[in-house]
């Protein structure tokens, strides 16, 4: 454990992200500063205006351009950050794939918000879930403290030579992004030492030389040029391998960070709560885990063997860890804060249920879609989910596979 004194600041999730970005010695922040942008880049632009950072701040004309600027800067070896939410992330869609395909370790914070129409920018996971196949690492945080910690970790994970993938840190819109919390921040020096400068691995160039993997006039390379049917597939397979490596690197960086901060979030991939002997488990992402834990504490006092599994890292999906965590569980409720219209249930449900298909334990797995467009989910509603699981166990029957929490029927 490190004895570095940590200051306690009152920050909302956005400000926690901006503060972590300030300490991460970012070379460029490019962002579109109008709705649905959040306080993240507003605060950061103040740091720039006050001369507190040496970062190049680029106000672009759209989110598509913001990510393009970050990608281009990252390709030269710079450390790049951007932030967006909702429709802004949707507008980045094309460049998300270009960024991951170019293996540019851009870090982006997303205040998770709904997508129009009807027009709504309140909290849910529709924006990032719609981008889950874009080749970005996705980490969902539970509180502002974790948002701060995860941004710092994200740079180190993304830039690792075995990973080289862009990373999204998602924090629930408004619940985390705009809510004030006490956040413990590390001294600037400690963060600087932890991250260091971005290291650039070597690649084989067209001149047959090993050159740094960056755009450099001294050692010219091309990134992301045309790859026809005879090669495109191979590059996509490489991205899958990088995701597999990321599972190990996320855990490793999470552990290294615990050494300097004394803070851990499960193993960095999944975060279990009272799961060891649990029979009834709720699986969820983000800030909802806080509410679920409160309900679990109440249920435990009543003798109900309840537990929570929070998926912190959704991309790459820690499949082995999830199977292992749920190995003794009898009934599982998967909570989805977004919809996959026309499929059976939400995206988290699809993935977790798929992972459990080959697991020796074959628990009942049901889906609860909740909180769309910022609708609040109460402890009473969570309690009802556990009661449903109890009924399923008692009757050995699932009456409703897909359920909607707090929806007027």
């Amino acid at each position, binding site marked *: 454990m490190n004895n570095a004194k940590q200051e306690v600041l009152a920050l909302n999730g956005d400000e926690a992200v901006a503060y972590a970005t300030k300490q991460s010695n970012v070379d460029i922040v490019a962002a579109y500063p109008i709705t649905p942008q959040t306080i993240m880049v507003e605060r950061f632009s103040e740091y720039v205006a006050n001369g507190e950072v040496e970062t190049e701040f680029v106000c672009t004309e759209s989110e598509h351009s913001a990510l393009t600027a970050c990608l281009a800067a990252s390709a030269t070896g710079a450390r790049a950050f951007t932030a967006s939410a909702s429709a802004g992330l949707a507008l980045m869609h094309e460049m998300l794939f270009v960024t991951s*395909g*170019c*293996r*540019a370790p851009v870090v982006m914070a997303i205040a998770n918000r709904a997508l129009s129409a009807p027009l709504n920018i309140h909290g849910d996971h529709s924006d990032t879930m719609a981008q889950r196949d874009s080749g970005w690492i996705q980490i969902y945080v539970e509180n502002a403290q974790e948002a701060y910690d995860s941004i710092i970790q994200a740079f180190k994970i993304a830039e690792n030579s075995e990973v*080289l993938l862009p990373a999204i840190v998602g924090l629930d819109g408004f619940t985390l992004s705009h809510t004030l919390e006490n956040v413990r921040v590390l001294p600037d020096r400690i963060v600087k030492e932890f991250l260091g400068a971005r290291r650039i691995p070597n*690649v*084989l*160039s*067209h*001149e*047959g030389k090993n050159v740094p*993997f960056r755009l450099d006039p001294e050692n010219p*390379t*091309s*990134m*992301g*040029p*045309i*790859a026809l049917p*005879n*090669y495109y*597939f*191979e*590059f996509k*397979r*490489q991205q899958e*391998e*990088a995701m597999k490596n990321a599972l190990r690197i996320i855990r490793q960086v999470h552990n290294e960070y615990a050494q300097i901060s004394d803070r851990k979030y499960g193993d960095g991939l999944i975060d279990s709560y009272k799961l060891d002997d649990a029979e009834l488990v709720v699986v969820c992402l983000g800030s909802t885990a806080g509410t679920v834990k409160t309900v679990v504490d109440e249920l435990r006092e009543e003798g109900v063997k309840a537990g929570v599994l929070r998926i912190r890292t959704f991309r790459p999906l820690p499949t082995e860890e999830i199977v292992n965590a749920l190995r003794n569980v009898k009934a599982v409720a998967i909570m989805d804060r977004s919809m996959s219209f026309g499929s059976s249930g939400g995206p988290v449900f699809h993935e977790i249920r798929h992972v459990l298909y080959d697991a020796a334990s074959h628990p009942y797995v049901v889906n609860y879609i909740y909180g769309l467009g910022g609708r609040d989910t109460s402890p009473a509603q969570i309690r009802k989910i556990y009661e449903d699981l109890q009924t399923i166990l008692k009757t050995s029957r699932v009456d409703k596979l897909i359920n909607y929490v707090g929806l007027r029927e």
Partner: protein
Amino acid sequence: MTSKEKSWKEISPAGVCWKSSTEFLTGDWKTYTPIRDVQKCTKCLLCVMFCPDGAIHWRPEKEDIEFDYNFCKGCGICANECPTKAIEMKIQ
């Protein structure tokens, strides 16, 4: 696809080119091939300048032009621009 092509483990990330573009021969795309009538050609070099792929070269040692069919796509711009109509596009 030939067995000479590399596996995903052997190639650089992000499509970084490991060969020069001159090693990727692209002339096999063409349907029409430009054929020059040397009797009509005045060596004005307009075709050299108009070729969008730089596939027609001036060879000073021969004092003549030369078509590089490894890179010619058969677009026919040279034939269209030739003031003496010395270039004919023949189906390959």
